């Protein structure tokens, strides 16, 4: 989504790891980026310590002292966020959902970033037929409606979280690839790349030693936006009923709340928290992109 915004990256960004670190330090000075990194850090910590944080088994049916199922309990007390209409602890589900979010987000981010970067690098560096072919492929991927594609994929294969990750990777790489490609086009004209070529460095060496480090910030940027996309997609697919039925995710919780009419019962304690968690993680990606905008467009930094 941020393609146009960063489609003209600053050509003066230095071409080395130290410049990348400098950019990272600059990011740390941006409050949005700090907020984003804090959210990510929290997500990772919650996911790692989920077993310690959960108060109940998120899938277990809970019973009250009188032997009846603990349905629709309000928040507070034993059940921090209350219970579902089938007697599961909402807070514990929320914590369990962080694992799924992290897993889906990170794998989608890595695959989108890796695929997009690789295609962008090859396309930009080699140009000619390679470029034409890869960019055609990108056009085709962009012409496939995203959510319907994921729904069809999850509907016909056994509904599975990995299908969502695969679909995200298959359809979201072109945006990354296009931006990376245009960046590569400018970087490869630079003197030190020329110098490396004259000294007889191989294409691969030039590509991965001299060019790639320059575009790493962009890769991270697109990766972080892909985290959000993947989580949102998982939620939407779950909502229409094609989610992974055996894995607790925030999207699963929302669908569960939706079909059991949490809103008609006024169970906002059930419907709101997963949505807010999704917003936080997705927005972290946007914040990071926005923070990076300041890095990539230093002109605005005045």
């Amino acid at each position, binding site marked *: 989504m941020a393609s146009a915004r960063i489609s003209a990256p600053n050509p003066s960004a230095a071409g080395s790891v130290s410049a990348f670190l400098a950019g990272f330090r600059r990011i740390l000075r941006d409050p949005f980026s700090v907020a984003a990194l804090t959210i990510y850090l929290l997500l990772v910590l919650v996911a790692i310590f989920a077993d310690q944080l959960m108060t109940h088994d998120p899938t277990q049916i809970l019973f009250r002292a009188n032997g009846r199922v603990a349905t629709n309990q309000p928040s507070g007390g034993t059940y921090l966020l209350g219970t579902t209409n089938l007697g599961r602890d909402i807070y514990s589900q929320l914590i369990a959902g962080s694992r799924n979010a992290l897993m889906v987000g990170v794998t989608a981010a890595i695959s989108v970033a890796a695929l997009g970067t690789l295609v962008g690098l090859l396309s930009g560096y080699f140009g000619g037929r390679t470029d034409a072919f890869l960019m055609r492929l990108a056009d085709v991927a962009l012409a496939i409606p995203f959510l319907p594609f994921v729904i069809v994929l999850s509907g016909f294969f056994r509904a599975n979280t990995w299908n969502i990750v695969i679909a995200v990777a298959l359809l979201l790489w072109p945006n990354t690839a296009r931006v990376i490609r245009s960046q590569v086009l400018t970087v490869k004209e630079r003197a030190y790349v020329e110098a490396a070529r004259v000294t007889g460095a191989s294409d691969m060496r030039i590509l991965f030693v001299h060019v790639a480090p320059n575009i790493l910030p962009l890769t991270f940027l697109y990766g972080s936006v892909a985290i959000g996309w993947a989580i949102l997609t998982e939620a939407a697919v779950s909502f229409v009923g094609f989610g992974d039925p055996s894995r607790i995710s925030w999207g699963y919780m929302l669908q569960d709340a939706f079909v059991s009419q949490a809103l008609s019962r006024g169970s906002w304690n059930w419907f709101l928290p997963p949505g807010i968690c*999704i917003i936080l993680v997705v927005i972290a990606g946007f914040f990071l992109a926005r923070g990076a905008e300041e890095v990539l467009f230093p002109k605005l930094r005045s």
Partner: protein
Amino acid sequence: MSFALRRLAHSLFVLWAVVTILFLMFRLMPGNPLAAYINEQLSEDDQRLIMAQFGLNRPLYEQYVIYVWNLAQGNLGMSFFRREPVWDVLKSALPNTLILTITGLVIAYVFGILAGAWLATKRGTITEALLVPTALATRAAPEFWIGMILLTVFAFTFGWFPSGGANSAGAAYTSEWDRVLSRDYALHLVLPALTLALYLQGLPLLLMRSTMLEILHDEFITMARIKGLSPWRITIHHAARNALLPVVTAFALGLGATLGGNVVVETVFSWPGLGRLLVSAVAQSDYPLAQGAFFLISLVLIVLNLAVDLVYGWLDPRVSHG
């Protein structure tokens, strides 16, 4: 002219590629098209008959040729369950989806562009510090989640809008135009279109804002400022016009997400559109119908992309000659 032809050829190529992917997707997938036919009476012969009726018993390449040939003639095949041509099923849903999409997009882009331009003049203020995250948050929230909240508040609690559907029960109209132009239809359209718009406005808003910021730093704006033109005049006459091009590009890119996103909005608001058809067709393994719905959504996407391309080339001659 040659630019237009080049774009057209390109679109046709993309269309062919999408059709091929679509074919492979539906034929190579696991899942039994007969699984939905739970029927005591379905003998093995009947199963074979159904497979034959839908051409599922031929070799793959033959099926492919037949499929493409039929598509070229506008024949999307027969729905497994409805036992009628897929196109007849889709054509009743297509206008609803187009109207919802376009209304949502227009609201989002008009609002987003205006608000974005305005926000650019507020750099460094509290307003910016509050509104930018808000815009991002609506973009980051699941559409169905926002939709359900709107529905609960404005339909269930206040009763300002109907709870779902595209028309009041049993409303009769003389023609399709009459129907979609009625007040009743508009009333039913408000909440779904608003949900869609809330989701979509973030991109034009932020994009407009950042390109405006860039342009406001350019020399010709500084010149104008020196000349003593009012900030409003500068914004409207100089900056906004230049900032629009990337927004137009983003519009095209956003279409894919919009048409896809309809799927969930249509479910929340019981909106009888293509997205819901697709979902139910996939749930029932009605391959021809799912394939047809998918194809139509892709086709709309490709056509709109082409239109945006052409408009863009016309707006910015550098593109068509580049």
